[in-house]
């Protein structure tokens, strides 16, 4: 792990991860900030240039940087969503109970949320921060991306955070944009998901970028949620977000929430599609995602979104361009499996809240888990601070894990014959001479304790996946990376305990490539070792556990 991506900002940050002087709002100071930030932005822009003759060949995310892993969840709902029910404090208390260090509160955007909910959730979040001092609680939004699916948008706490979120939602939420003026919306696009919204999505991301540029926020991030669920996140939209604001639009849920939704009705579940992935193409869906005899993009595979789960699929087609796109795992917690609470009786449309939930005394049929109960997004960060966790996410130091399948993961990629003894880690980028050997060392800390399904999960295998970096795709709707494949599968011996180490060498590399890891409990695999399409209404999420680690890019110079 390392803080390489942050390198460009170091000289701008005299104290404590922040160069921004809250007390100093003099125009001169603003101009100076803009100048300094501009330098940072320019440097970052060259850094993401797909490694094609980039001037900056500083390794990013260097191994053994002293970073630590912090588990979190960037997708959590409360009673301020029309389809959810819990108090903020209840969600945070459960996140803490299930081992999370950071959470993002992301109620659905829309007219009522923008007008009524923001002012209510902000003080609740502040109260939760005071009540749970060891848990970072971010204020965010589940943005209806105009023309597409939902996304998490969030910022670290700051003087302007709520104002930025409020203005962002008022101008750019797909629900607000598509709601007629007479009903309090903007009436500018036909539907939240219709293609006339796409330019608004890009403008929205530029707006967030500008807030950081202007010094009103330290950092702002966007992650696309449940990207393949309804087929409305086309490949060109994903590329458009990433390329418009690469420091803001950083990735997507590799695994959606609602992981309890496919538990059979006999076992108290809803018997729906896992992740509530059970849709089929609609009018705004990307035609290329239509189900075929071979696959159904509208379903999860091993609990992960098809874009991520398919080797050589959409995620790989983005990575093959040489640009990071980070995947996560979240709870999307609205209503929790096995819980007896039902929504309050308040009218959300007119008050922005459903009111306090009511204990019905009867177990309800719900499809979600508490934050951290099943899904974790592990982020490598320099410290347990709001800005550092977000920087870790932006740097791609991220592992998505289900059911606590592993306790830890170290990945080290280096070219020792090139004189690089240190190497880079997850989410990183290294630069090696043509013809050198690239050595990959994987160290997995196997699960040593019971997960929240009540058993110690057993990792069966780790796949090392790699593919050529082929540069920016001429076809913005490209959705495959034919050159990406599993290059080696490491079996975990039965009875293995503690740490287990695997190595692989890419000999005499002659062109840029990337590599990534995934691991499985091995219980539901096809003949090629890939995850199976999850069966609606008949899927025990605890007997189909996976982890996915974000890529390392190897540039050849």
């Amino acid at each position, binding site marked *: 792990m390392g803080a390489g991506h942050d390198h460009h900002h170091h000289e701008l940050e005299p104290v404590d991860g922040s160069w921004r002087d809250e007390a100093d709002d003099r125009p001169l100071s603003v101009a100076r900030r803009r100048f300094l930030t501009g330098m940072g932005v320019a440097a970052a822009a060259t850094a993401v240039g797909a490694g094609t003759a980039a001037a900056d060949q500083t390794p990013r995310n260097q191994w053994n940087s002293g970073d630590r892993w912090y588990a979190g969840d960037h997708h959590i709902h409360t009673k301020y969503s029309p389809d959810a029910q819990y108090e903020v404090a209840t969600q945070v208390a459960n996140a803490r109970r299930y081992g999370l260090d950071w959470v993002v509160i992301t109620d659905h955007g829309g007219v009522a949320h923008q007008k009524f909910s923001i002012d209510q959730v902000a003080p609740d979040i502040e109260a939760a921060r005071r009540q749970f001092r060891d848990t970072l609680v971010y204020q965010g939004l589940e943005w209806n991306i105009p023309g597409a699916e939902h996304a998490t948008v969030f910022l670290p706490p700051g003087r302007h955070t709520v104002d930025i979120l409020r203005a962002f939602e008022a101008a750019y939420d797909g629900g607000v944009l598509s709601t007629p003026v007479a009903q309090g919306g903007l009436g500018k696009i036909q539907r939240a998901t219709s293609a006339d919204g796409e330019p608004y999505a890009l403008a929205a991301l530029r707006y967030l970028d500008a807030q950081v540029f202007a010094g009103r926020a330290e950092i702002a991030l966007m992650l696309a949620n449940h990207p393949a669920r309804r087929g409305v996140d086309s490949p060109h939209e994903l590329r458009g977000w990433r390329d418009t604001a690469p420091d803001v639009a950083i990735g997507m849920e590799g695994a959606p929430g609602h992981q309890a939704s496919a538990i059979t009705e006999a076992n108290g579940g809803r018997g729906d599609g896992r992740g509530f992935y059970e849709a*089929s193409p*609609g009018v*705004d*869906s990307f035609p290329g995602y239509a*189900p075929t005899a071979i696959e*159904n993009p509208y379903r999860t595979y091993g609990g992960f979104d098809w874009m991520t789960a398919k080797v050589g699929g959409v995620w790989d087609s983005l990575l093959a361009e040489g640009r990071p796109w980070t995947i996560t795992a979240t709870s999307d917690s609205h209503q929790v499996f096995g819980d007896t609470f039902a929504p309050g009786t308040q009218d959300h449309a007119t008050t922005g809240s459903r009111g306090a939930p009511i204990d019905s005394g009867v177990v309800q049929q719900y499809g979600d888990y508490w934050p951290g109960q099943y899904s974790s997004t592990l982020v490598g960060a320099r410290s347990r601070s709001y800005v550092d966790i977000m920087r870790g996410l932006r740097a791609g130091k991220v592992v998505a894990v289900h059911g606590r399948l592993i306790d830890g993961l170290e990945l080290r990629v280096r070219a020792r014959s090139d004189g690089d003894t240190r190497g880079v880690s997850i989410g990183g980028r290294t630069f090696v001479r043509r013809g050198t050997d690239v050595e990959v060392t994987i160290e997995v800390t196997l699960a040593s304790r019971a997960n929240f399904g009540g058993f110690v999960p057993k990792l069966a295998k780790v796949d090392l996946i790699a593919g050529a970096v082929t540069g920016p795709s001429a076809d913005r709707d490209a959705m495959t990376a034919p050159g990406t494949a599993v290059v080696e599968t490491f079996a975990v011996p039965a009875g293995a305990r503690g740490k287990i180490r695997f190595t692989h060498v890419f000999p005499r590399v002659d062109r840029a490539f990337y590599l990534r890891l995934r691991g499985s409990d091995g219980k539901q695999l096809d003949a090629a070792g890939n995850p199976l*399409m999850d069966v609606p*209404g008949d899927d025990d999420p605890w007997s189909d556990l996976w982890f996915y680690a974000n890529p390392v890019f190897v540039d050849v110079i």
Partner: protein
Amino acid sequence: MVRWLGAVCPPVDGSAAHVDHVLLSTVDILAADLVCTHADHTGAVARTVMTARLNHEPTAAVLAELADRLGLPAVWVAGPPEGARCVRFPGQEALTGVHSAAEIVAASAIDEVVGIGVAVDSPIDTRGFLRPTFTEGRLVLLVEQAAGGVLRPVEIAAPHQCCGGH
């Protein structure tokens, strides 16, 4: 003589099943035996287009009434495009329960039942909702594994709607 009539559908909110119901009510005066929908992506905003198969020549009065209901006139088209989704087809009414693939093909206009990564030798629980699609000129019903050892169509009547389906 078989002809196909095409028209842009007026926007309707709600589940696919509800939208289909509204469409079929709108075109009931045509007495079409096969009605399809597809997404037309040629404009800035996608829209749903209907194609209806007629085995007779509709009267001018019927066409005028249809134009009135749709808000614009229908036009004669070559047929539904690849991937069009079939909302009504011959034999549909008889297939409301659990049937084998052979029964479905024998009893309806569906030419083939195709499993996604699964053989179609288990019974298919239609749940009274079948939306086959035109694939290379043939009407194909895609099915997938479901709970309880049965298969089910990949399109279901009421998929879970998050946040009111925003």
